[in-house]
Structures are given as C-alpha cells and as structure tokens.
C-alpha cells in the first residue's frame, strides 16, 4: 500500500488536462476570477481556500499554500477587538471572539484538537464540519480551518467517517467500469439525488462524477473529482450508502496509472536518482545533527530557481 502511494505521488504531474491547465501562467487570471466570483460575503473564507485548492500540487501552489496556512493560524479577531459571538459546539454554548475560524474558535473554547485537524490550510480534509445557522433549517458544511464563525452557529465536527474502503493494487486493475464495480459494488446504488453535491465543501460536481463512474468513464470521473480532499461528507449523507470520495480516488488512480500520458521529466529524474545524482547531498543530511537539520529546513528555498526542470516540462505541455 505504502509503495503504491509513493508511486502515485510520483505520477502526480500526469493529471487530467483541466487541472494541469489551471496551473499555467495563462490561466492565472481565470483562477483569480474564480476566486473573486466566490468571494461572496456569506462565505468569507472560501476565496482563500479555493485559490489554493485550484492548484494543489504544483510547487508554486504549495508555496502559496504554506504562506496562507501560516496566515490562517495567526490569531484573528484583531480587527474588532472585544466583539464576541455565540456559537454552539455539539449543543453547548460558547462565546468566542468574532473573526476566528471555526477551528480557532474550538481551541479558544478550550478544546485540544487531536483528530479532525490537519493541515489548517484547506487541503487535507480532516476538519469537515456540519453546521446550521440560527433560524435556518438548512444543514451546511465547511472546513473548520477555512470558515469564520458566525453568530448563532450550531456546529458538529465530522473528523472521520467509517466509509467502506478497499485495498487494491492499481497496477492490476483495468481502467474500466468492472474495476469500479468489483471494488465498490454499492456504487450502482446511486440514485442521483445530488445530496452529495449539496454537502461538498469543495463545490465538486460529486453526482456528475459518480454518473461518469457508473458508465465507466474513468477519465471524466477523475477530472471532475480532482479537487476532492477526501473529507467524506458526501458519503456521510448518501442515501445509497455509496462512498463517492473513494470511488473518485479509485478513478484518479486508474486514470493516472493507465490513461494519462507519462511525464517524461519524471522518468528522467528517476533515472538520475538511480544513477546517484543526489547521493552526496543525501549522505550529508543523514550525517548532520538535528539542530542543523531544523535550521536548514526552516531556511530552505521552496521554489529554487535552479530546480533543473527542462523547459518543456515547466510549461506543462508534456502533460497535456
């Protein structure tokens, strides 16, 4: 399993074309426009998260994400000192400063987050939260690290959902409907009620990618589910007991293993690694003491200019 994950991570550049396009310079304006469009006052935290989530794997996105994640953990509420809001955490009332994220508010209220808290940057999907606003029947969902508390919010954390999950060897599965149905037969119980779409904190067209999966369109399911952060809220509300997020992950794995064109620069790099290109540096890292290692980590260059990526690879054309 661990081996497979590593292989998977190595192939991430060969992702669906749409996602690859998003990372290109030319698409930046589009990303910004999307973020601006989503900057509705009712959902103040969304634009920040969407901007990151739109480009989750490229180094540029990662650097940006780290900056924003750091910003998200800064103490908030300084803009309106003293103003407090009432929230209800699993039914119990707390007063917390206005402007905190749900996650910070929980900590302000004295809770220590052992589970249901991961990256604090809107990536990991650990802090799925169901909430309701005072006087409104509608159940809403959010990532606790990305959503600001509001007066009268009723909150329940869903840090984990015990959804059906299969172990499989993606190398041995064909990218077909059969592979999906063999591993997740409950997929065919989908009634297309669209409840999953309504609870997705990433605004993913969950029902649409399930529809694609149900007709064996692995590439489309992989593409549509690309922004999934595996929070599991879709499965938590599914009347058909399907496990959308695991089906989406299976499709993305099948896509990247069997359908996506191989990233040539990755193959070159793997050959270089095997030939010992970084052996000297690696040996040094193993040799130095912990304090020095921490120092180097803190001062590292996240996007080194001399990343040694060939021209055609950084343009993304190889992957399209």
């Amino acid at each position, binding site marked *: 399993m661990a081996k497979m994950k590593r292989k998977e991570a190595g192939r991430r550049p060969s992702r669906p074309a749409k996602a690859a396009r998003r990372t290109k310079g030319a698409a930046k304006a589009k990303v910004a426009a999307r973020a601006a469009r989503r900057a509705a006052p009712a959902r103040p935290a969304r634009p920040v998260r969407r901007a990151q989530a739109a480009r989750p794997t490229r180094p540029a996105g990662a650097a940006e994400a780290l900056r924003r994640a750091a910003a998200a953990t800064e103490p908030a509420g300084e803009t309106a000192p003293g103003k407090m809001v009432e929230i209800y955490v699993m039914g119990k009332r707390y007063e917390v400063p206005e402007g905190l994220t749900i996650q910070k508010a929980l900590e302000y209220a004295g809770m220590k987050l052992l589970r249901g808290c991961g990256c604090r940057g809107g990536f990991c999907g650990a802090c799925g939260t169901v909430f309701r606003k005072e006087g409104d029947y509608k159940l809403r969902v959010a990532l606790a690290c990305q959503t600001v508390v509001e007066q009268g919010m009723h909150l329940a954390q869903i840090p984990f959902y015990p959804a059906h999950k299969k172990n499989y060897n993606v190398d041995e599965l064909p990218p077909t*409907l059969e592979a999906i149905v063999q591993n997740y*037969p409950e997929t065919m119980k*989908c*009634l*297309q*009620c*669209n409840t999953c779409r309504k609870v997705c904190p990433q605004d993913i*067209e969950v*029902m*649409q990618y399930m*529809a694609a999966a*149900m*007709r*064996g*369109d692995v590439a489309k399911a992989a593409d549509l589910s690309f922004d999934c952060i595996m929070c599991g809220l879709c499965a938590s509300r599914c*009347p058909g007991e399907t496990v959308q997020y695991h089906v989406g992950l299976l499709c993305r794995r099948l896509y990247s293993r069997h359908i996506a064109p191989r990233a040539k620069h990755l193959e070159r790099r793997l050959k270089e690694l095997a030939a010992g290109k970084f052996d000297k540096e690696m040996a040094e890292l193993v040799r130095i003491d912990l304090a020095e290692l921490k120092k180097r980590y803190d001062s590292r260059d996240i996007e080194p200019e001399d990343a040694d990526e060939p021209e055609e690879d950084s343009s993304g054309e190889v992957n399209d």
Partner: protein
Amino acid sequence: MEIGYFPGCTLKTKATGLDDSVKDTARVLGHELIEIPDWTCCGATFSLAADNVMALAAPVRILANARKVGDKVVTVCAGCYNVLKRANYAVRHDEEKLKKITDFIEAEYVGDVTVLHYLEFLKNEVGFDAIAKLVKRNLGELKVVPYYGCQMLRPHKELMFDDPEAPMMMDELLRAIGCNVLEFPHKVECCGAFLTVCTDPSARAGSAAGSGAAEAGSEAGVEDVARGAVSECSFTILDAAVRRGADMVVLTCPLCQFNLDSAQEEIQKQRSNFKKIPIVYFTQLLALALGLDGSKYALDAKHHYVDPSEVLKAKVTA
C-alpha cells in the same frame, strides 16, 4: 434542426454501435442530435412503488436538463425510453409529486418535454417515405424479423408508443429501407430481461466482505437458474425467427440485444441442431441503407456473440 438527445449509459459502454448509428443516421436525415447537458443514469428501471419519489429524481432532472435544449428529447434505448416517459407521465399527472421532486432536485420543470423514441422521431418528424427516398443500398435480400420486447410498449397507457400486442412501427421502417420483413408473432415476447444480471444478494454481501468460497458456490447456483430462464425465453424467440427463415433479428433495446445474443452459445450446447442467428439494432441497418460506412457501427464479431458481418456482406449490396 437540432434536437435534444439522451443516449443513456449503455450506449456509451456496451452499445456504442447503437449510439453512433443513431447520431449519424439522424445527421444524414438532416437533424443534429445534441446530447443534453449533465445527463446521468436514468435509473435503468422504473420503480413500481407508487410512493417511491426518490427514484423519480434522476429522470425528472434529466427532463429538466433536456428542456434547456428544447421541448423534445430523443432516446433510443428501450429501458431509458420507458423510465423517462413514465417519469414524465407520473409528474404530469400528479402536481404534488412534481412539486416535491422539483423542490428536492432544486430545478424548474413543469412536464413540458416530450419524450420521443428514435423510431417515433423517424416516423413523425422525418417520415418513413422521406427516408425511403434516401436509401442508397439494396437490403432486399435480407430477411429480418423485428423484435420489440417489453419496455417500449408497456404499460401502453403511459407510453402510448404503438399497439402493445401487435406493434408495426419498426416493421414499417424496415420495409421503407427495403428489408424483406417477415411476419413475426413473437415480437413482444419477453427475452428474460433483468434475470440475466440476477445474483444471490447474500452471497454478494459475503464476497464483498472478502469471505470464502462457500458463498461463491451458492451465487453460481442462483445465477445458473436465472441464466437458464433467460436461455429458455430467448430460445422461444430465436427458434421462431430461425424457423421463419430470418437472417437476423432486429431490435432497439440493448438488454434484449445482450440476452438474445449471449444466450445462443448455451442454447446450442443443449440443443445441438439449434442454428445461431445474429441480433442487430434497427439503426445499424438504417445506417447501411443510407449508404454510411458499415465498419463504423460495431457490426462485427468483436461486438457480437453471433457475428452479423458475413450475412450482411452477402446480402447487402450497393
């Protein structure tokens, strides 16, 4: 003219020859079939529980999406036609149900889309006479029996497709494109339908949890009984067709196609004198008649258990 088209899942997987031949023949006849936006599975079967509103969510959403393209939607899969048309009937005749569903799916729909089978579309929007004038190949040597099955005919009150006991629409089209159409009393018999996918649910739950071979054994038992029933149903239809001297059975339903086609191996094992007969879609013959490239529409051994290519090669002439 552009018109909304609902292909359905099977036409994108097992029945691509049906999908391609529908779109291409429509184009030759001057119509562009536009796939309606964001279509999903229709549900495949229409729920017989009168209060099962949830099962109507998918087909009504599909109809609401079809409305964005126009006031008509064409489909050719008999299963999809059955589900969409009955769902439409259900919400047209029950305002409360319509309101409940549109509230749930958060979409506007007032029942104002007409669901058309491609046969109805060809008859009413194009005209069989007009099609006859465009025929480019001679299919006169080809002796065919049209087979309608159940899903596009019944219940007649809701579908209003054709006479449910003696339908003639496909007969008329096949005649218009020059086929030698034989009278076929078995045209509305059941092919075995969904028995072909019957499995023992307890065995499947067991195998899903990763347990052993005991359940797998009982699953095979149930499947054998179900497949045996499909073989029997299919044999009645196929044997009648062969005895009439037909070269092939022509139909419109992918499930009937699968059952009638795939059962023949098993039938032949049990009845050594049984003669196999190819099963094709009416749109595939229409494509041939209109002069389209026959190699494009899955009329080969790869897509059939009983290969139709040889008899077509021998009997369809320029």
